[in-house]
């Protein structure tokens, strides 16, 4: 690797994401405290932890929606820093799905999906539409392509948001509590789509409170509290034999119901 942050072409052999002693403050409040974590290519990581523990901040630092204050973050070998070229290169390769969907309300479902491929990848409209329709079919709502987002249910909107991110053909996907804003009956349809995606070998980091889902899907589970990674390991072990008392409390609370 060349000097500090010089690289701007992705290196597929490097760790997909590497956090090296990353800290982040909001004013005097530390949201991340020296977090280190390496995500291998194709690995599926689930992040859990109580509200306010820094889970969102952690994954939002990956595509620079938040700027970290200390330490380094490398995405496929590219350092995440202030250089807008590198930031855009990273954002092209990293897809993100938000808790509140964030579909563009003035654009139809199809237009939501083709905007970035056309504007960022320079794809022709016909090609972009074909691509978008194939992903909309994969999330099982091709028939809604012409509708505006507000005409869809929450679960459908979230599946569109997933398709929209996939249309950029990212190698890494970040999910920030993708089902927390959904009615219970819609959670499954979204989790199924994410589960299928996991089987394609995509690198994924998913913040979620769906423990059954985490157990089935994750290669590794990361438990955060107060801006730190308290414990990490295979989900089976974390569920069976949690070491940290904080994790034990957390699991007890979340699995009670």
């Amino acid at each position, binding site marked *: 690797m060349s000097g500090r942050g010089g690289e701007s072409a992705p290196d597929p052999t490097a760790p997909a994401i590497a956090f090296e002693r990353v800290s982040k403050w909001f004013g005097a409040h530390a949201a991340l405290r020296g977090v280190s974590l390496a995500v291998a290519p194709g690995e599926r990581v689930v992040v859990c932890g109580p509200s306010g523990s820094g889970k*969102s901040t952690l994954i939002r630092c990956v595509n*620079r*929606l*938040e*700027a970290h204050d200390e330490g380094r973050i490398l995405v496929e070998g590219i350092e995440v820093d202030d250089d807008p070229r590198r930031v855009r290169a990273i954002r092209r390769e990293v897809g993100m799905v938000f*808790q*509140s*969907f964030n579909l563009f*309300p003035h654009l139809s479902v199809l237009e939501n999906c083709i905007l970035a491929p056309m504007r960022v990848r320079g794809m022709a409209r016909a090609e972009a539409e074909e691509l978008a329709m194939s992903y909309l079919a994969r999330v099982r709502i091709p028939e809604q392509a012409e509708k505006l*987002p*507000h005409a869809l*249910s*929450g679960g459908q*909107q979230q599946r569109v948001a997933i398709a929209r991110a996939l249309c950029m053909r990212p190698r890494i996907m970040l999910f920030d509590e993708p089902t*927390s*804003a959904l*009615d219970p009956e819609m959670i499954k349809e979204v989790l199924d789509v994410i589960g299928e995606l996991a089987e394609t070998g995509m690198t994924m980091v998913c913040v979620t409170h769906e423990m059954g889902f985490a157990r089935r899907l994750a290669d590794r589970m990361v438990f955060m509290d107060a801006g730190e990674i308290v414990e990490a390991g295979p989900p089976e072990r974390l569920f069976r034999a949690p070491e940290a008392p904080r994790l034990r409390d957390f699991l007890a609370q979340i699995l009670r119901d």
Partner: protein
Amino acid sequence: MSPSRGPERASRPALARRPRPPERYADARPGEIIAASPGVAALGALGFAATLFVLVWLAWRGSRDLGYAWQWYRVPHEIFRRVGGGWQAGPLVEGLLVTLGVSLRAMVLALLLGLATAAARLAGTPFLRGLARAHIEIIRGTPLLVQLYLFYFILAPLVGLGRFWTGTLALAVFESVFAAEVMRGAIRSVAPGQWEAARALGLGERTIWRRVILPQTVLPMLPPLAGILVSLIKDSAIVSVISVFDLTNQGRNIISDTFMSFEIWFTVAALYLMMTLSLSTLVNGIERRVRRLRA
């Protein structure tokens, strides 16, 4: 004349069927996903100061080349002058007092008229309601200047009104429409549950108005009404057209005597700025306190 007020905003269509989780940190400025660092910000402030300096310098030099003689030293004389041993208000301060006098009187009248209009719209007979609507639409559909001329050329000679009161009345009638909208909005924003609860307690209609509904409208009404006073101060400049000697008119007079156009207009603008900014600061203070009281 009062560009701060458009038609009431249409409510935006809901984006999703079910309520969304609250946006994170809605108070963060959307443009600044990543804000500039303090160093860059300091550079910006410096650059801004430099730009201002260059602009002022260019204006000064340009005007000198065109033969404009700056005479700032004569301006203080127009604000305060020394007469005998004491100080006396110069024409600008006299004008300022007239502006304040017109605005405050017009405000009181506008409140009374606005109250009547709002009451007519909310509780009047169909005839009164229609009258109030017509009043509002006509005032909103014509320029303040034309209204002022109508008052000046027609009403004033009819009832023998002086210029000062003609201007005051025209401003009051104009602004009463906005006062009425504020009051109507405040009354309608009282939750319907309040009516139901009061009726369920067996209170009479009159008691409900006096003891339950109106007291709740006073606090939320204060900030927008103060905003109307700010608009009134600005709009009152129009009375200079019918030779009321307010701040603007005093400015025009001084300029016709001394030809110090830039100096006087900038001073007049600064005096208006002083009045409106100090009032706005006050309004913000009230607003914050009101919000705290209601929280």
